[in-house]
């Protein structure tokens, strides 16, 4: 992988303001004030260790996005010097950006973890794609694909990178979220979560989705990526890329499967992505922010919230994500 333009300034930041814990200044009675990132890190690591201690067959869902990158980094810390004692699972749609596939394989290898890639065979056979099949694409590749993968491997606990600040219905999600044996989520029937005591007991066939990043915000994620020098997909940083404009979304023409309409010509624009999904469904924004601090600066000054670039939340009116969760979407 080519060295990322962000590294230079990211390093500068962490050198100027080291996040890592430095030893007490001589006097052991002095209070150590932990920063919010140190406390979030400690909480996430504690959650992962509880799952490994109590679940029989855990897995980490890995979507190759920036949240997944942070989650994987935390897993490495939680179990060091051992590699994380579970595999990574990528529920693939075959329509991710090429840069994502490249980083996925590298990240798994670097972490010393097994990478499982699952593609829903039915979606593959029927040639389901985002251009011709609309919402069915997400439903079959992702929602159905995830259920099939969990069933096939018999995973009883799956880590996911969702955060409570992403969307209203997620604010009430538990850290340990129980799913019936058909993967359903019942918001009225979740267990109370007290202190940092997680009840991981479940009946055969039931499973848990575990969200170790529940209490992180988007800004926390970016700050942590900078402080810890975590490698992320370069698409988060602005660069000249071939694009077309469709239905108000700026789409990147990532490979020659992109069907151009008569007269349509890809235009080179300086763009970046706030979230990453299937390239034909993920809207880019025009931006000149080529380094991490610039991206964060733009994010803080901008007035558009994170998931806006994804078409998925707008299905089914305001309660789109909640409905998807009840159907078993992550």
């Amino acid at each position, binding site marked *: 992988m080519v060295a990322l333009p962000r590294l230079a300034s990211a390093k500068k*930041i962490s050198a100027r*303001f080291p996040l*890592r*814990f430095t*030893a007490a200044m001589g006097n*052991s009675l002095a*209070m*150590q*004030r*932990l*920063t*919010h*990132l*140190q*406390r979030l890190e*400690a*909480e996430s*690591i*504690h959650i992962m*260790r*509880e799952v490994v*201690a109590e679940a029989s067959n855990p897995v980490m869902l890995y979507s190759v996005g920036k949240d997944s990158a942070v989650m994987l980094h935390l897993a*490495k810390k*939680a*179990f*060091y*010097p051992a*590699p994380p004692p579970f595999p990574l699972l990528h529920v693939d749609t075959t329509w991710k950006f090429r840069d994502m596939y490249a980083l996925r394989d590298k990240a798994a290898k670097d972490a010393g973890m097994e990478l499982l890639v699952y593609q829903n065979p039915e979606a593959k056979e029927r040639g389901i794609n985002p251009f011709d099949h609309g919402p069915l694409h997400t439903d079959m590749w992702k929602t159905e694909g995830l259920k099939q993968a969990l069933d096939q491997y018999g995973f009883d606990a799956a880590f996911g990178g969702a955060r*409570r*600040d992403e969307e209203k*219905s997620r*604010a*009430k999600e538990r850290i340990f979220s129980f799913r019936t044996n058909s993967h359903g989520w019942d*918001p009225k029937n*979740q267990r*109370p979560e*007290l*202190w*940092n*005591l997680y*009840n991981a*007991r*479940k009946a055969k066939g039931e499973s848990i989705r575990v969200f170790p990043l*529940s*209490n992180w*915000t988007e*800004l926390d994620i970016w*700050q942590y990526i900078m*402080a810890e020098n975590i490698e992320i997909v370069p698409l988060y940083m602005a660069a000249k890329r071939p694009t077309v404009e469709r239905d108000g979304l700026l789409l990147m023409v990532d490979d020659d499967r992109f069907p151009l309409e008569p007269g349509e010509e890809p235009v080179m624009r300086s763009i970046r992505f706030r979230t990453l999904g299937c390239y034909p469904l993920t809207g880019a924004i025009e931006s000149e922010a080529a380094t991490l*601090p610039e991206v*964060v*600066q733009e994010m*803080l*000054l901008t*007035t*558009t*919230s994170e998931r*806006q670039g994804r078409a998925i939340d707008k299905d089914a009116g*305001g309660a789109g994500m*909640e409905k998807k969760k009840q159907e078993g979407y992550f």
Partner: protein
Amino acid sequence: MADQASPEPAYVTDALIAEDIEAYLALHQHKGLLRFITCGSVDDGKSTLIGRLLYDSKMIFEDQLAALEADSKRVGTQGQEIDFALLVDGLAAEREQGITIDVAYRFFSTEKRKFIVADTPGHEQYTRNMVTGASTADLAVILIDARKGVLVQTRRHSYLAHLLGIRHLVLAVNKMDLVDYDQATFDKIVEDYGHFARSIGIEAFTAIPISGFKGDNITQAPSANTPWYGGSSLIHHLETVEIANEADQAGPLRLAVQWVNRPNLDFRGFAGLIAEGTVKPGDAVRVVPSGKTSTVARIVTLDGDLDEAVAGQSVTLTLADEIDCSRGDVIAAADAPPEAADQFEAALVWMSDEPLIPGRGYWLKLATQTVNATVHEPKYEVNVNTMEHLAVKTLALNAIGVAEVTTDKPIVFEPYETSRQLGGFILVDKLTNATVAAGMIHFSLRRAQNVHWQALEISREQHARLKNQKPAVLWFTGLSGSGKSTIANLVEKKLHRMNRHTFLLDGDNVRHGLNKDLGFTEADRIENIRRVGEVAKLMADAGLIVITAFISPFRAEREMVRKMLPEGEFVEVHIDTPLALAEARDVKGLYKKARAGELKNFTGIDSPYQEPERPEIRIDTTAMTPEQAADLIVDKVVG
């Protein structure tokens, strides 16, 4: 009232973001973290206050704001103005009801701190949600509607916050705009609240007059409308109050081991979150409950070894000596280890629709320890509105009480007052796996320390050897009229003829003597089985083959008896007769009475029978005679 422009929030740093992003990031990287809860009655304006905090700290983006404005017009309760509450009320079903029904977590930030807010409902039946939100909070904001003053709900929320060990209470007297910002109204509320707070042991609280809707005293104090107010704004108070995990560092080291890290033969690390204290390489530590001591060799992290780690950090320790230490153990300062005990007094908050069943076994999880536990009949329940103590037999959903708890092996703990992490526990139902209660340990009971086992000179093995047999408990279970007593008697006769030393404990007979004080409620039936189990165990210790014939309808109690006995000595015999057939036989005429409503809690009619999942022996009485059944059982036991 003249409409006042919202005060400019003091904690938005747009200029810095634009001018020097790295300086801004540095500032925000070093923030602390405060977790707090907001609680109040329905309509006290909680959601509006939180919406205001998010709005003022720019945690609302343009597209959310557009959606909010549209929603406000459609379902809002504030006319044409923005209804901040809609930002916070998440799930679709709740939005329709207009009530927050669960715990939602929100995030906002100022330059000094990041905040995690638990929005907990004020609705009467949802005490459990508030307790959940309070369990992780450092501070509680108790909202009061200035027009209504201190209400029953205010008392309840304050009591719960205090019960859960929250040290910082903020009394936010809200809707001051609706009482013309009247100082006398504010003072009266503070005085009323002060009387109540002292009566339940709250030593200090901070009162702030606010308007969540208009923004008074949220970010800057005093607002133009409350010149008489001399204290901090709400935000300023939240930014400066002491954070709990910093206080935790002062205590002796406590680390509950979560996971033993053994990547290879040369490395053995103990991973866990430091609950209290600090740790350095070279520190003397004691592993509790075993009591073994060693010294800390290394504090291992991905970024290199640390020279010191403190409460609130997740670390991996290695020790200088190879001593036994596994999940559930606590690594503690060698000179100040925590106690281990198996009997406690604890406060319990019941969180399940199924009430507490005294005597039943529940899983108890405390830190990283999970053990079997039983709860005794509560000493009392607290009426959370009047703080009166009530005599009760059980605890129902949302009830708070004090009871003794017994665990089947000692656990390492500290009083909740000293340590949330080693004093707080949950109870889990063994069948449904639901979290049914939260508990807070008061103290261990002396009894646990003073009742010792008397070592016996003649062992159970010696008793059994003299009788030339292997002791066992043949536990017959099945519906009334299924044929338990008939078959059990045949089995005993056959064994007796074979020179086996046996004894039959029959349900009806036991109830004439040992258990004549017990009725047929669920709790009494459980106590009935517990006593029979203990008697059967003593007889098995004496070397006998014990045969019991009890309906024993609940799986949990049969499992409890199984656990009392050495592996293999408990033989569950399910006398499987369909209800219709047992009812048709109706040898004692009981089904007829139950159907007529003359007998309450009758198994199979208005009380459940939980079939054994994997009995050692299952007798299908529709397929064999009692004689055949008895032969089969004897074969299995003696053969």
